[in-house]
């Protein structure tokens, strides 16, 4: 109970370190979600509209990647951007950009899969209606994006939810450096291992609030459809 009291004190007193950690988490997650959206939404749309050999196999692989462990992603990207790796010259290991890179790899399959499955659920009459009214390729794409806007937004928010709450990638690629790459999740892991539960709890409360907020938005959007 005492730890809870101190946790709320840290939040409401505007503790600088706590809010720096929250800010770092948010800006890294927002950037990685933005980058993933730019790549994942077009990929999901292309996957939906195109037919090619082994498409079903590719969809199965993407769906399997939804369960990708964060530490595996961390390990994979680590091997790419470490000094001896093929992207070592970028010198981004243990920087926020390394975390962004890992989180993009982590959330890309989520966004592709959700956009693809969301578009697959659009009623078959929708395309027939567009075509019969004279819509051509570009019109069909634009109308589909508008019609599936809630599905796409839900996919983006789900991707954000995944990266804001992950710990493996941030820890392995960011190094949990104070005032630089320390995020809410890595900080919670560190503080709780040190026995400093008040800061861990304060960050936990903020993280859960953000997660609930994102889920609330997704729920509202789905309901509005």
């Amino acid at each position: 109970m005492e730890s809870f009291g101190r946790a709320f004190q840290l939040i409401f007193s505007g503790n600088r370190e706590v809010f720096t950690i929250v800010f770092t988490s948010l800006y890294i997650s927002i950037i990685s979600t933005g980058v993933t959206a730019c790549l994942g939404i077009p990929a999901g749309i292309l996957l939906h509209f195109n037919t090619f050999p082994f498409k079903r196999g590719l969809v199965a692989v993407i769906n399997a990647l939804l369960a990708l462990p964060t530490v595996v992603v961390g390990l994979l990207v680590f091997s790419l951007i470490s000094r001896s790796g093929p992207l070592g010259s970028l010198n981004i290991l243990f920087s926020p950009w390394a975390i962004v890179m890992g989180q993009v790899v982590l959330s890309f399959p989520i966004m592709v899969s959700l956009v693809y499955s969301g578009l697959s659920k659009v009623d078959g009459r929708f395309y027939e209606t567009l075509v019969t009214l004279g819509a051509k390729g570009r019109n069909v794409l634009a109308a589909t994006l508008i019609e599936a806007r809630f599905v796409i937004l839900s996919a983006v928010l789900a991707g954000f939810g995944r990266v804001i709450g992950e710990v493996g990638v941030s820890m392995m690629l960011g190094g949990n450096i104070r005032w630089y790459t320390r995020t809410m999740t890595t900080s919670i892991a560190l503080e709780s291992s040190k026995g400093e539960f008040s800061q861990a709890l304060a960050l936990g409360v903020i993280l859960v609030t953000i997660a609930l907020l994102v889920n609330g938005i997704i729920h509202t959007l789905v309901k509005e459809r």
Partner: protein
Amino acid sequence: MSELLYSIRNLKYAYPQNEEVVLDIDRLDLESGKVHVLLGPNGSGKTTFLKILNRLIEYNQGEITFMRESLKQNKVARQKTVYVHQNPLLFSATVYDNVAYGLRIRKAGPKNISSLVKKTLSVVGLEGFEKRRSQALSAGEKQRVAIARALIIKPDVLFLDEPTASVDKANVARIEGLLTAIKTEYGCTIIVSTHNIPFAYRVCDSILHLEEGKTAEPLENIFKGELIVNDEQFIQFDSGKFHFYCPYLEGDFKTAVIDYDRIFLSSAPVETSARNNVQGTISKIETAYNNENLVIVEMDVGEKIKSCITKKSLKEMRLCIGGRVYLHFKASAVRLY
């Protein structure tokens, strides 16, 4: 003046996933400016046929021409024919956005779009519905918004797939009135599929039966007109050029149907119990398409009317084109819709 719109020859269609032939039409011509009704039970191939004519489905055997050009790759057919689903799907947007869609993709100006949306909504009886969300509409209203969305691009052909299937009685009457308004206002050809028999007869200019993918021209005379009460006991149907006795029924009937085989012929006046005894001139004699022993005799009685008799009767009565003949049919032989 009606022109040949669609000409269909030896059309056979089977869905790729199932080799069973769902459409098998040897020969069919559809004229422009009319309301053609496809009447048939569920699963008879009506929807498939409409989708083929609208190029939503590519046919794999036979030939179809649209305005005397092959339907395949026909760009005019793509731009000037619109299909409205049985349960139309409206975009998740306002009624205005739904109706305006066809004009927006054709790059019409906003002022033009706004005035045309207003006008089209008034044609379908939905004035003031512009700002309503599509999800908040009833089935009948959705149907009319879908029709407005199709009409706004002024199509040459409007395909309506079972427009009365999911609407209540009041909306069926509205759709009937709407078809007449569309024909008058837009002059387009309407091809409607339905299994609602009264609706079919009331709206049709021509009717076609479709069963298990095969078309059959019904052997019946269809007259459009109104009922006139002569006295307390009898009622007549007046098509404008021809009037005849029919059963006494109460209601707003606009169509009278008499089967070919309910009209019998005589070469001289005879006294019969039939209420309708008329003299006519034979204008055409042709063999029935489904039975070589029968002939269809077309007569002019002010309107064209047809009767079906055997070849033997034709020979014995010495009927020929231009000859005089007497037609007899009972009032009860007339079906009213």
